[in-house]
């Protein structure tokens, strides 16, 4: 089994290095094939491991070698394959494999085909390190690793120039990449501080040792550690106020958005909370804060998705919103439900993004859904896939999203946090509305694309086949809820609905369903017949507010980026040059000036020198006499 662990972990690394060998060469089709196969191997290994853990109910622990050892701190490269990590491994490798195969088609005409696969596989490796590590430091390796890969992949088309925010809200791929990296770094500082708190209070960074020590720690330490770690999670999972990078990250190629910014990396924050559940379950205040923030983000992001016109950004906002759901579940103590939604979401959201990729491919990278419409005639399969994924996302039974999201909403009710419950229910309605607004505007109604001169066509058949596992899982994943619960609650705390909730379960489900169906029906009425723009609505302040993401990116620019640049400039030109350096030069100038002044004594006239000598002698005599008088 140990070998399988290493195969699952290192196959993506080998894949990445292999592709990197050809990174600077023109497209080589076999690079795409080989990397996809290696990822497939990693998936098979993960699946076998999952089966092993499922049947034996025991975790596999391996230690590769020591990493850092200094003072009392010892960090090994240790990996653990237990119920939680194996779930993540399977989900990650499955989606990655699909995305790799898909990218063969999507990146077909790209000059940097090989480079793309190198980055993509490197990302999978980092993600595997993140989920498999048996200590916080190893998690942090993966954490930063996915950050860099995300930076590389968002900025993949780095040659595009910067444009104004009005023209493209993300400015440019390289700008979006830097924004993502820096925002994540802000959160990573929190994460690092969390590690420090854990280390100095428990003497270790190994999960099992740390969790064993937790009961001996004081409440304030636990709160501090939980808060710091959650700040880290907020960055990676793009929670408010560190959320703006996620929508800008849509500048990356669409397979990247599917894999990194929907299915895997952004869920790392949720994974962290689930992984550290012993810590978070001991800090009810922080957990409640997580749940509230999660609920807020769920609603907040959904509201921005309502009016957006960008195909990918809508899905990005919906990702944000679903991450909010996951945090709400984790914050309320239903860790396994959060993990379940994480997995189910990975399938249908990746499917949705890949579908969006197909549309973009067909539409020459056009993203404005107002310019599409009626695509169902030429893109039957993509319509089917995106429709399925949207149904799952909207939480319509029997699709995956229904089971996972309904459970979260039920949890909110069960915990007695009725306000959260109400917000989550309303958000579910909004989710259904914006998902189907997008689907209908893209695939139904009048064929607006003809006006803009596009010639859409369906993508390669193998690409469609590659997407099918995700489609199947988006449909059926929900049926495994029971066995999934049994499986992961071996490790995670169980969560049961109270008697009361249990009785009301069908009613609650019905309410959620009503909102979801209502959303879809509304979207159908408004958009299925074609686009009818409501100028009056679009001119209202609240529409503008939503369309401009509550002006938060502008606020960040005005109140953080610009002042930072300005202060930097002042520090350099005013402080460093005019004060610090000028002081040093001032001292030098003073000495130089004194010398220059004293130079006048050097007249070259012997007589003057003799006079000076006499003056000096008299002065010396005087000093001698005075000091003799004082001492004597």
């Amino acid at each position, binding site marked *: 089994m140990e070998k399988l662990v290493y195969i699952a972990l290192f196959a993506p690394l080998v894949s990445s290095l292999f592709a990197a060998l050809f990174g600077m060469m023109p497209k080589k089709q076999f690079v795409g094939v080989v990397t996809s196969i290696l990822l497939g191997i990693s998936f098979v290994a993960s699946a076998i491991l999952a089966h092993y853990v499922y049947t034996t109910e025991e975790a596999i622990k391996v230690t590769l070698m020591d990493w850092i050892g200094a003072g009392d701190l010892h960090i090994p490269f240790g990996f653990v394959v237990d119920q939680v990590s194996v779930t993540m491994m399977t989900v990650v490798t499955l989606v990655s494999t699909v995305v790799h195969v898909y990218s063969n088609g999507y990146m077909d005409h790209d000059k940097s085909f090989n480079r793309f696969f190198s980055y993509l596989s490197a990302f999978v490796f980092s993600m595997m390190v993140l989920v498999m590590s048996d200590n916080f430091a190893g998690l942090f390796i993966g954490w930063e690793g996915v950050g860099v890969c995300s930076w590389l992949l968002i900025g993949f088309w780095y040659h595009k120039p910067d444009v104004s925010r009005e023209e493209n809200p993300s400015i440019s791929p390289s700008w979006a990449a830097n924004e993502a990296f820096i925002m994540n770094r802000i959160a990573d500082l929190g994460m690092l501080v969390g590690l420090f708190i854990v280390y100095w209070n428990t003497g270790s960074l190994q999960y099992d040792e740390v969790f064993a020590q937790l009961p001996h720690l004081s409440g304030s330490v636990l709160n501090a550690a939980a808060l710091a770690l959650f700040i880290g999670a907020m960055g990676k999972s793009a929670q408010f106020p560190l959320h703006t990078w996620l929508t800008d990250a849509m500048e990356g190629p669409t397979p990247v958005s599917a894999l990194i910014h929907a299915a895997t990396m952004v869920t790392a924050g949720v994974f962290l909370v689930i992984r550290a559940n012993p810590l978070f379950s001991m800090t009810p205040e922080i957990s409640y804060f997580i749940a509230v923030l999660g609920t807020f983000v769920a609603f907040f992001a959904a509201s921005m998705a309502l009016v957006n016109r960008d195909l990918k950004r809508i899905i990005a906002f919906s990702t944000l919103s679903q991450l909010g759901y996951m945090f709400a579940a984790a914050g309320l103590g239903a860790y396994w439900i959060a993990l379940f939604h994480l997995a189910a979401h990975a399938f249908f959201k990746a499917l949705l993004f890949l579908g969006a990729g197909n549309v973009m491919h067909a539409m020459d990278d056009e993203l404005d859904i107002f310019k599409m419409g009626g695509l169902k005639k030429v893109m039957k399969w993509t319509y089917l896939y995106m429709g399925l994924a949207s149904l799952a996302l909207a939480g319509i039974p029997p699709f995956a999203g229904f089971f996972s999201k309904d459970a979260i909403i039920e949890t909110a009710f069960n915990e007695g946090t009725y306000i959260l419950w109400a917000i989550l229910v309303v958000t579910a309605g909004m989710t259904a509305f914006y998902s189907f607004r997008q689907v209908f505007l893209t695939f139904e109604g009048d064929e607006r694309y003809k006006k803009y001169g596009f010639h859409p066509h369906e993508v390669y058949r193998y690409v469609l086949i590659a997407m099918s596992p995700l489609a199947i899982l988006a449909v059926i994943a929900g049926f495994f809820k029971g066995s999934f619960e049994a499986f992961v609650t071996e490790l995670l705390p169980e969560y049961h609905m109270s008697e009361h909730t249990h009785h009301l379960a069908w009613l609650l489900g019905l309410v959620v369903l009503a909102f979801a169906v209502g959303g879809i029906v509304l979207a159908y009425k408004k958009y299925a017949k074609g686009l009818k723009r409501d100028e009056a609505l679009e001119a209202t302040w609240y529409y503008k507010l939503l369309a401009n993401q509550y002006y938060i990116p502008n606020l960040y620019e005005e109140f953080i980026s610009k002042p930072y640049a300005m202060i930097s400039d002042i520090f350099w030109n005013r402080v460093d040059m005019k004060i610090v350096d000028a002081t040093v030069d001032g001292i030098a100038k003073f000495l130089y000036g004194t010398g220059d002044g004293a130079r006048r004594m050097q007249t070259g006239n012997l*007589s003057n020198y003799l006079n000076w000598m006499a003056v000096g002698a008299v002065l010396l005599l005087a000093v001698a006499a005075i000091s003799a008088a004082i001492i004597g």
Partner: protein
Amino acid sequence: MIGLSHYLIVSAVLFSIGLIGVLRRRNLLMLFFATEVMLNAVNIAFAAISHFYGDLTGQMFAFFVIAIAASEVAVGLGILIVLYKKHGSLDLDNLASMRG
């Protein structure tokens, strides 16, 4: 009775005359004379104090000073002659090539 203090006063007066000469004169030859006057003022003091203490070291030192002064004059006058040949004058105001 002529005592030590008289000698010392003479010495001091001579020294001051020499010093004023050094400070005021512009001619190098005159400067030399002024220096000689100062040296001899010191010699008087040496001899007088030596006698006062009954210690011959002072008088010995006076001889030493005379010897040094003699050699200094020998070398110095040589330099003066060369200078005079070169510049045609011994006026210090004309000899300021070391101006800083």
